């Protein structure tokens, strides 16, 4: 009998660990940190003195994004609830923080087809190369 309690208990504890880890992961979003570290110049718009690459790297180090896009005109970071764009402006960077829907529309020319698409399915730059490697 004791063996069953131990066996069942191990499976249940393992399940609890998986459930709790999944529930608490991905809830992080950098919007509050950005508002406290950079100069607010508008609703969801901030100004930083650093270059876009260094600012995006600082935000990514603090809050790991689900995905990121590097374009010639800026860096885009995807979080569960926000899209953060770091764009070059004279003397530094402009940081735009939007919810996912608004950010997807605003930056569609850069993130469209990659973070969404018809029916919500991305269609470009998917996979790990020939043979599906890296999976």
């Amino acid at each position, binding site marked *: *009998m004791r063996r*069953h309690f131990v*066996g*069942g208990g*191990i*499976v*249940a*504890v*393992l*399940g609890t*660990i*998986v*459930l*709790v*880890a*999944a529930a608490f992961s*991905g809830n992080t979003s950098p919007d509050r940190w950005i508002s406290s570290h950079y100069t607010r110049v508008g609703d969801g718009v901030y100004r930083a003195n650093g*270059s876009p*690459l260094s600012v*995006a*790297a600082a935000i*990514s180090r603090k809050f790991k994004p689900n*995905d*990121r*896009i*590097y*374009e*010639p*005109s*800026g*860096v885009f970071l*995807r979080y*569960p*609830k926000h899209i953060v764009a770091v*764009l*070059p402006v004279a003397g530094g960077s402009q940081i735009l923080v939007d919810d*996912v*829907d608004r950010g997807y*529309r605003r930056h*569609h*020319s*850069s993130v*469209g*087809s990659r*973070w*969404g*698409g018809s029916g*919500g399915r991305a269609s*470009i*730059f*998917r*996979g*790990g*190369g*020939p*043979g*599906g*490697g*890296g*999976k």
Partner: protein
Amino acid sequence: MSGSGGAQKNGNNWGCMVAIIAIIAVLTVADLIDWGGGGDADVPVGGGLFGSRGAGHLVERLNDATRAQKICYGWKIDTDAPVDYREYTTPIRPANPAVPPPADLDDDIDRYDDNETDVGSNLGTGLDPRQHPQQCPRWVVFTASYTYSYYEEKWTSVSIDIETNLQISIGEDALRRAGITRSDLLGSQATARLADAVGVLPMIVAEKGAAPQVPQPAASEPLPGDKPTPPGVARYVWMGIGGVLIAAGLTWIIVAAVRSRRSA
């Protein structure tokens, strides 16, 4: 005594069966989840490493950068995977070229000795700016050389470089500082990271003061039905797996307790 022993043995077998089924279910579901990684479903449409749509996006963005900075940008990626690699079925060209296209364009694809190298630039797919000094007197090219393991069926190593004839030094460290590492280029999102490594070049050049920043591309509105991918699907799947494991563990304990009481 023997009846009690038999019941306990049955209980043991049953418990093990529940645990095995739960573990198999977890592994199966985990394997079925689309983590955004590779797979046959992600073979790019239109050939090439990036597919026709991906290459088209990259070519247009590099073309924008060339217009703003008067510098050509390109890529040359040795995939080391001739079996799976296909050339672009239709060459991609920028809609509104920032520099005049090379003459006799259709015959001017810069072919390399093998059939596993993906080449492209602001001039289009198959065109290496280093081979077109008239159109591209100043150029920056991202190069990568992969090692493909037929046993593991994936890329196992990569060497990368950024070649340029500008009077600045750009190396792998510039990509690393931007957040793009070799490990990214070997991971489940390798194709996206390769596009990033090429796409970030104009920004690196601008940050080094060799050219102005590239302005934002013209805004485009999503078509009806074009919406963002739902984030964190995998998270909910893992939560479901956790719930199944908890239920399996509790069921094991309860059934074993009931059987034990009956046999007592």
